[in-house]
């Protein structure tokens, strides 16, 4: 079976989310792998959300915001860009390929661009393969778990949820 990546998209309400809508209503077909989360501005995307998404099972995260100069809150998208760039620098330190996080500017009118971005991103992550962050972290801790005669449940057992 071909690997179908799970992708999370944080989309700005004013532009990219509308762009995605447009792609939908215009019946432009694109890869179904992206779960879109609407945010009020790309500047509201806390990098913690992205890390959390990767941890919880996303194979890739897409951030989309208004083109430079078009942000409804003036500077939000610049902030997003700077955070994104810094985040990309630390991902390899976690053993995560930086390509798994991607940022694009997509305007409300750019339905086609949106579809193209999603398709390309999906392809790229397909090639990278699954991330499996949570499971791999717990797997690497498997040998570390103490079975104590009277300890009962070991707390590290969270791995089961993964």
């Amino acid at each position, binding site marked *: 079976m071909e690997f179908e990546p799970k992708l999370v998209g944080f989309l700005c309400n004013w532009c990219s989310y509308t762009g995605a809508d447009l792609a939908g209503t215009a019946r432009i077909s694109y890869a179904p792998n992206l779960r879109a989360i609407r945010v009020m501005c790309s500047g509201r995307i806390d*990098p913690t959300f992205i890390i959390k998404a990767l941890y919880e099972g996303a194979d890739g995260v897409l951030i989309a915001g208004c083109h430079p100069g078009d942000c409804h809150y003036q500077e939000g998208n610049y*902030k997003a860009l700077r955070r994104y*760039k810094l985040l990309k*620098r*630390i991902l390899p330190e976690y053993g995560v390929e930086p390509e798994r996080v991607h940022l694009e500017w997509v305007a409300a009118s750019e339905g086609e661009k949106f579809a193209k971005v999603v398709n390309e991103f999906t392809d790229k992550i397909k090639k990278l393969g699954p991330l499996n962050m949570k499971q791999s*972290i717990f797997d690497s801790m498997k040998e570390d778990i*103490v079975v*104590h005669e009277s300890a009962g449940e070991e*707390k590290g057992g969270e791995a089961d949820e993964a």
Partner: protein
Amino acid sequence: MKLKVGIYWGAACGGCDVAILDTHEKLLDIAAKMDIYLWPIALDFKYDDVKKMEDGYLDAAIYSGAIRNSENEEIAILLRKKSKVMIALGACAHLGGIPGLANFYTRDEMLKRIYIDSESTINEEGVIPLESWNVKEGELDLPRFYNTVKTLDQVVDVEYYIPGCPPVPLQIYSALSLIWDDMLPPVGSVIGAGDKALCESCPRVKEEKTISEFKRIQQVLPDPEKCFLEQGLVCLGAATRSGCGARCIKSGVPCRGCYGPLDDVPDLGIKMLSAIASVLEPKEEKEIDDVLDTIVDPLRTFHRFSMPASILRRKKE
């Protein structure tokens, strides 16, 4: 009635124990209010004394140090069973601390580095310590060296946290007094510290400047009055909990984040990443890259004390 307390260290440097001793004259006060049933650095009690206790016998266990090996974990589990309240003392127990930086490596890489590759070691047969070893007198056991350093609350339930590397001694005292005064806050609270960001209690002057270049402290003589971050020195005060009295900052060095994150912040390092990126000056990709090039080793800098407590916990293998 006097409180019954056990004090223990896991993967610790001993600085947290020294910080308890550094309550100085209050030590006599502590001794008057608490009977200490285990304290390896100072008293001559042994594990067996604890094992013989009935469950919940101790009013509190104070655990400093991270969980780096099976012994650290077993004693944490033992003390948890024997104690009504479990307190994580110091950055190592709270967040993984400095030992937690080992989570950028694997167990095998570390053992090889220490016992085989280290420059002063002569070990032609490639001997690596074993968890069990037979000698003619019997079997010798060693605790298992873990692949991943854990925080205390990743192995047992923890009621309270006293942050800091090491915690400020008077803060330890005030946290302990919450126990004997029966004024403990809700379970899960950080005690003996503030609830705002360090920046808010920092004496340095802030002007809301944006930053276009970072420097490291060995490259500049910082202005003694102005905010470090605004001078382009990475300071973790914006994402770090107050309570230390800005002691590093007052001695001329930026904050490295030992008091840990504020309430409801799951990941200090990523929060700091966000805060730093927000105050950068440039908007163009190329210029942003140039500024970011001046932040050396960002992840370990932001997670100096908190890697095991972070969302991703360790480097993926």
